[in-house]
């Protein structure tokens, strides 16, 4: 009964989204306001159906209705209620339904917020959103149906993926990622609408930018949560491995970041319209490509548990969306004419252009590196991967250059900088850069890239702080968007510096200890207290307990462990970390024998790791501050040099 109701709701959502999309496009062609009104109703209808379908699924999960296919697959009477609730996104079918729910919220929200406005664009935007919604509804109705009926249901089920129960971050990482990925559909719809209408007026820039900024915030935090999870769980002491699925989340983030910057030039100078629209569309396409990378199983990844058979279906959708985008751009991009021009390369807008160039270069670098194993296999039939050295050698110089731009861009004026202005903007903050680099050198930094990052980080940090507080309290009232953007920049500076320091200045030591023995690393003495086995309903754990002291004073007790889940072929190690603002002590078990009370232990000290998590959250908060609307008159294209104006946004 529940399964039948769920299937009915999903089939209805396929119909509503498909019909709504057609109605919306027809309304766009005929410029019919009645048609637009009807399309809006279809958009709300789709969202309502997705909410209802999700409620039905949660009801089935909570009542342990094992006659519903998805509940039989991930449900269990043994797991706690909170695990049952979040198991909605623990496996493919449920997570695609969750995707549909998020899409419903986004489409309904964007439709509601644009009511009575932008009527020339909105039919095409709603039509595009609902066309995407049709595909995902179809996916839920067919290839990834969570509402299949099970004729002879079992009394109990296996429970969700053990990884979901292994760490809290695994529960919150997927929703953030979906909010980032799915949200890119909204700016994509706006960009397609601008192209289909053949113009991109100034009043339409604000919704386009806000629609891009919101998923960007979620994606930024999702990437960080993924890295944090890898750090806390995988046991090798790192947070980023250039894994294809990590790259999949980074790719749309890079193009969306570039688009957020080029949108500012578009707003200030009336140029780069076609380019910005292209970046927005690329961001959406890269989210679909990312979904394919995660779900198809053709990439070798730590996320191989998310593989499924829907790869070909997603690839067909990706190909269709790509074809549509390329043809639409080719036909219409010339209609988005520039209204102004860039006067000089040595100016703020010039730096925006360089910034965009670097972001696109970074996107292609990561995309090629990720797809390289597939290319080699397709051409030569051999398995090969480019690995970390390729990514590090390509990404580190570009990342360092971007850090420099965070400093130099906002220091230059719009329009054309005089030689004196350029020199003044470059020279004074460099003093701060030299001071930071010197402190780094005194603290032991010797890697040239780290020292360069510290130099540029100190420089960019100074410029950011000066620009952030210019105008005092007026900034917060009038220039919230500008202030928020500088908070994002400050976060980005800290992230880049922390990545450079933590990846080049870590120390590690492998030791073998028997009970009662101790080993030293940095300021810490780590004493092996005991190894014990613990049996829980869903896993068997072997836990090693260590006392950590520093200069004879007790610091903490750490308990890294090896967990063997019944559903997994290999055990999962769970390291334990003692985090402080300056450094982390990370203990990870390599092997353990409770009978002889011996343990093979990896001890790692990594400086500044906590700052990565803090600074990414800061970027998210900055994004939110920039997102809050400010009550100002509609923007008018002008050449102003008002640093406190609503439009004065940093590079």
């Amino acid at each position, binding site marked *: 009964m529940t399964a039948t109701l769920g299937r009915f709701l999903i089939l209805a959502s396929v119909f509503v989204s498909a019909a709504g999309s057609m109605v919306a496009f027809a309304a766009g062609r005929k410029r019919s306001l009645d048609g637009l009104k009807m399309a809006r109703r279809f958009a709300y209808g789709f969202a309502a159906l997705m909410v209802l379908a999700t409620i039905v699924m949660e009801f089935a999960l909570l009542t342990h209705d094992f006659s519903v296919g998805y509940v039989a697959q991930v449900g269990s009477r043994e797991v706690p209620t909170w695990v049952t609730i979040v198991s909605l996104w623990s496996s493919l079918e449920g997570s695609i339904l969750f995707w549909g729910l998020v899409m419903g919220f986004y489409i309904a929200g964007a439709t509601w917020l644009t009511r009575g406005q932008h009527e020339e664009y909105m039919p095409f935007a709603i039509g595009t959103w609902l066309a995407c919604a049709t595909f995902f509804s179809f996916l839920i109705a067919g290839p990834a149906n969570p509402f299949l009926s099970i004729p002879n249901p079992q009394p109990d089920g296996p429970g969700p993926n053990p990884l979901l129960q292994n760490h809290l971050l695994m529960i919150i990482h997927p929703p953030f990622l979906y909010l980032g990925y799915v949200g890119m559909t909204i700016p994509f719809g706006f960009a397609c609408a601008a192209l289909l209408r053949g113009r991109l007026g100034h009043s339409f820039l604000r919704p386009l930018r806000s629609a891009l900024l919101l998923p960007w915030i979620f994606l930024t935090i999702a990437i960080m949560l993924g890295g944090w999870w890898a750090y806390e769980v995988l046991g090798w002491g790192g947070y980023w491995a250039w894994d294809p699925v990590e790259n999949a989340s980074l790719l749309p983030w890079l193009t969306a970041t570039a688009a957020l910057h080029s949108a500012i030039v578009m707003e200030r100078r009336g140029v780069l319209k076609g380019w910005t629209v292209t970046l927005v569309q690329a961001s959406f396409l890269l989210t679909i490509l990312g979904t394919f990378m995660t779900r*198809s199983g053709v*990439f070798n990844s730590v996320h191989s548990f998310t593989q499924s058979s829907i790869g070909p279906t997603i690839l067909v959708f990706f190909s269709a969306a*790509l074809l549509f985008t390329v043809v639409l751009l*080719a*036909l219409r991009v010339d209609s988005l004419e520039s209204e102004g021009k860039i006067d000089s390369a040595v100016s703020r807008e010039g730096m925006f252009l360089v910034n965009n160039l670097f972001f696109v270069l970074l996107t292609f670098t990561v995309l090629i590196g990720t797809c390289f194993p*597939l290319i080699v296999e397709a051409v030569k039939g051999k*398995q090969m991967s480019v690995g970390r050295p390729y990514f590090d050698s390509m990404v580190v110089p570009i990342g360092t250059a971007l850090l420099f731009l965070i400093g130099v861009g906002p220091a230059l004026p719009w329009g054309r900088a005089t030689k004196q202005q350029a020199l003044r903007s470059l020279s004074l903050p460099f003093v701060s850069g030299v001071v930071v680099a010197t402190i780094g050198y005194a603290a032991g930094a010797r890697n040239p890239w780290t020292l360069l990052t510290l130099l540029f980080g100190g420089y960019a940090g100074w410029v950011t702080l000066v620009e952030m507080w210019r105008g005092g309290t007026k900034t917060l009232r009038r220039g919230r968007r500008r202030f928020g953007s500088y908070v994002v920049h400050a976060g980005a500076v800290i992230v880049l510096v922390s990545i450079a320091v933590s990846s080049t200045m870590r120390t590690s030591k492998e030791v073998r200890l028997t009970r009662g023995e101790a080993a030293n690393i940095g300021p810490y003495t780590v004493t092996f207290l005991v190894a014990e086995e613990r049996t829980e309903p869903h896993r068997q754990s072997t836990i090693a307990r260590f006392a950590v002291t520093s200069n004879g004073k007790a610091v903490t007790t750490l308990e890294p462990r090896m967990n063997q889940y*019944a559903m997994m072929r290999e055990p999962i190690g769970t390291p334990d970390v003692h985090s402080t603002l300056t450094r982390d002590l990370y203990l990870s078990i390599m092997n353990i024998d409770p009978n002889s009370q011996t343990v093979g232990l990896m001890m790692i000290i990594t400086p500044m790791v906590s700052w990565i998590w803090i600074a990414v959250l800061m970027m998210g908060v900055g994004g939110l501050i920039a997102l809050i609307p400010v009550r100002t008159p509609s923007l008018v294209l002008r050449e102003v040099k008002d640093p406190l104006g609503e439009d004065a946004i940093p590079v």
Partner: protein
Amino acid sequence: MNRTVLIVGSAIGLALVAVLFLSLGNDPSHIDSPLIGRPAPPFALKAINTGEMIDIARLRGKPVILNFWATWCVPCYQEHPVLVENAQRIGSNVQFVGVVFNDSEDKINAFLRQRGSAYPTLLDEQGKTAIAYGVGGVPETYFINPKGVIVAKFAGPMTTEVLQANLSKAMQ
């Protein structure tokens, strides 16, 4: 019509889509065991259910299906009836051997009593045999031809189709 956009966009898009389509169905985590084509590493262990001593070197002359498993592994529960059913059907021509890895005798006996057995089950107490075969996780099954050479390895729960396909390699 902007031809540059069309040409550049199509070139990048086509290349990407072509590579992705060609990759569909590939399993990047599949790496053949380096032991394939080499003699099976020797071992001699006592069967806990039949009491007989099994020396892999003495099993030559018949194909051998060597299955590594454990009572704590759920996929092993799934494949057990498949292995027992096949052993009962073709056990006179093929030698089935189970090696239990990282487990206790009591648990194995309880498992076999409850779910039946049709071939010798050995206990690899210190995991030396599993290490010699390069077992990455359980279940894993090795197919050895009558000359004592490993011809195939399968990681994951066994099905009759996979078993027959790999056994035909061992029969050649």
